[in-house]
């Protein structure tokens, strides 16, 4: 037994060492950096909480990107989860060609963000883009929008692409979750006179908590650290209209050479991610025990 334990420890050691060095040591180093005024090739000075004070009191770019990140997160998750659940229920209802639809829903997830962004940029072109062209062709010119070219719509346009890319994943997770519900429960509900809607509403959906947690945590992670699509589609613009924390951190750090300040934005991002995920896990655990 002792030998087995020793084996487990020995085999775990490399992974623990790597994670410790490449995650926790570097996070620690970033925390340390965030309390300095380090600019590229200049001497470093310890400045306490100055970076954080500036972030929350003076830096309009940071405040806008923080608000945008929250907006994008709420929009992305708020639509991906119901959409994924809805599509999973449709599949579960026994639509013809289920396998085909399942594949279709999952295809966007297999695209790289670069491919998606280029494809959607073309679709969002106000004059010749696919979306506005279709709208004009079917007589709905009034619905044609400036999309990513507008300060009021660029963030939501990027959000649409995130939803498109991830709703198939949510569908698959929910579909698996629905399939794993004990069929006896559904049958019992039907025998008791439950309609299809009531069966889903009172029997199946309440049992999708684990699936929801999985989707929620993953989509939260993606939306908080989202960079690729925003960077490629809008570069955070026009102006700061679609700037999110990750793109702002990159610009401040590498375009403006403020490495200490950039680290403080990174730490805000880490705290935000850990806080949100921690809160949610706490809530879920409480649900399990209560």
């Amino acid at each position: 037994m002792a030998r087995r334990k020793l084996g487990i420890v020995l085999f775990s050691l490399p992974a623990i060492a790597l994670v410790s060095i490449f995650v926790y040591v570097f996070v620690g180093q970033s925390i340390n950096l965030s309390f300095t005024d380090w600019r590229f090739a200049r001497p470093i000075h310890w400045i306490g909480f100055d970076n954080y004070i500036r972030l929350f009191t003076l830096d309009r770019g940071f405040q806008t990107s923080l608000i945008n990140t929250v907006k994008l997160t709420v929009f992305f998750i708020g639509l991906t989860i119901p959409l994924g659940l809805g599509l999973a229920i449709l599949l579960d209802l026994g639509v013809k060609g289920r396998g085909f639809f399942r594949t279709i829903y999952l295809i966007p997830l297999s695209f790289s963000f670069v491919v998606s962004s280029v494809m959607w940029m073309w679709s969002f072109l106000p004059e010749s883009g696919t979306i506005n062209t279709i709208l004009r062709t079917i007589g709905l010119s009034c619905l044609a929008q400036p999309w990513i070219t507008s300060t009021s719509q660029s963030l939501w346009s990027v959000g649409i692409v995130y939803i498109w890319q991830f709703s198939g994943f949510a569908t698959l997770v929910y579909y698996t979750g629905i399939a794993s519900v004990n069929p006896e429960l559904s049958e019992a509900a039907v025998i008791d006179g439950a309609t299809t809607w009531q069966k889903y509403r009172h029997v199946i959906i309440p049992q999708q908590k684990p699936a929801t947690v999985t989707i929620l945590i993953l989509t939260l992670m993606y939306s908080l650290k989202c960079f690729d699509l925003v960077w490629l589609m809008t570069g955070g613009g026009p102006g700061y209209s679609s700037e999110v924390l990750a793109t702002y951190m990159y610009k401040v750090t590498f375009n403006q050479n403020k490495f200490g300040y950039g680290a403080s934005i990174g730490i805000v991002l880490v705290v935000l991610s850990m806080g949100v995920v921690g809160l949610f896990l706490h809530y879920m655990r409480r649900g399990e025990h209560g």
Partner: protein
Amino acid sequence: MHQRTRRIGIFVVAFLLCVGLSNLVALASSEYTDQLVIYHWWTAGGEKIAVDSIFDVFKAAYPNIEVVENPITGGGGGTMRAQIKTMIMAGNPPDTFQVCGGKGMLGSYIDVLDPVDDFWDEYFPVPEAIKESVTINGHQYGIPINVMRANMLFYNKHIIDELNISVPFETLDDFYAACDRIKAAGYIPLAHGVGSGAKYWWTLMFDSILLAVPHGGPEYLESLYAGTANPANDPAIREALEAMKTIAENYINSDYAARTDDMANNLVVNGEAAFWQSGTWGKGFFTSKGSVPLVDFDAMAFPGNTEYYMCHSDCFVLPKGAKHPNAARAWLEIFKTPGAEIGFCTAHGSTVIRTDIPVGGFDDMAQKFIEEYRDPNLRKVASPWGGPPEVYLSLMSDALSVFGERLNVERTIQDYARAYAEVFE
């Protein structure tokens, strides 16, 4: 079972030993005695051919130096610079890397670069303004291979000929009048594209306009890049914003924010738009799509810029603490030779920086660009890629891209002044 596991183990160890041994043999038999670790952002078709042509010259001259090339595309060199900074801060700088020549840009790196004065002490025939652009505190920090004029306006020759518009435009008003005629004929006057985060095209337009407005001009632009201007109160900024508002409101394609620069160029190539602002490097955008210089398209100075040559060069530099300084110096030596320049600039489409290279071997448009560069009457002024500190382009472009959307002059003056203060804080 144990025996099988042991056999597999012996096989794996033997395999690894063989691999290690073969690497050792390869290393021992290598013809290389030195190495050049080099970073640049030339990855597109013509650029790649261009840089490969210098590598060929270099390898022929220094067969014992192994070239470890690291091309990193994106963001007009911004992505590569991000990589370089992390390498320098980690104490592992490359042997040499590409940077836009200009006091501001080089000044952003001066603390981590070694001067290259001795290269300039040798014969290197370039205009004094070019040498001055890489000189900081009396020392030179870069060796340029080419020069690019940034304040150019390319145009679809068929449209301009069809409408009988006379070019170039001495003033912005002449340009507006031509744009009105082009618009009335059903064309987009000016193709513009700042999509995929390329907001810096706004800055190029704005800084070119600054050269053309009454209170602007080269001295004002130089003061702006040096950090001595006062944008909140300078009339030139207001005049330039008013001019940019006129252009953005009336003459550019409405989908500019979704179009990349290349997609904007397509509008001119396809005959949908008349003008497109770019630097001399824009020629390659046309020729790569089959357009013929001086037949399908031509180029002139940006309106009101006919007397000014706004430019930057592509330089290579010597980082402090590089592992192979001799190889880097060999590279710089090759870099300034006529042979390397001619091969590079012919493929790249940029202008040779040495003034002693005969123009005969270049096409007509390239010859025109070379003549403009060598014209002593054209006042040379740095472009936003080289003249101001590195952060200028990023911060000012953010402020101007909001203006492009809202066209609010008063608010942009405040945003601009705030961004400017941040650049020079």
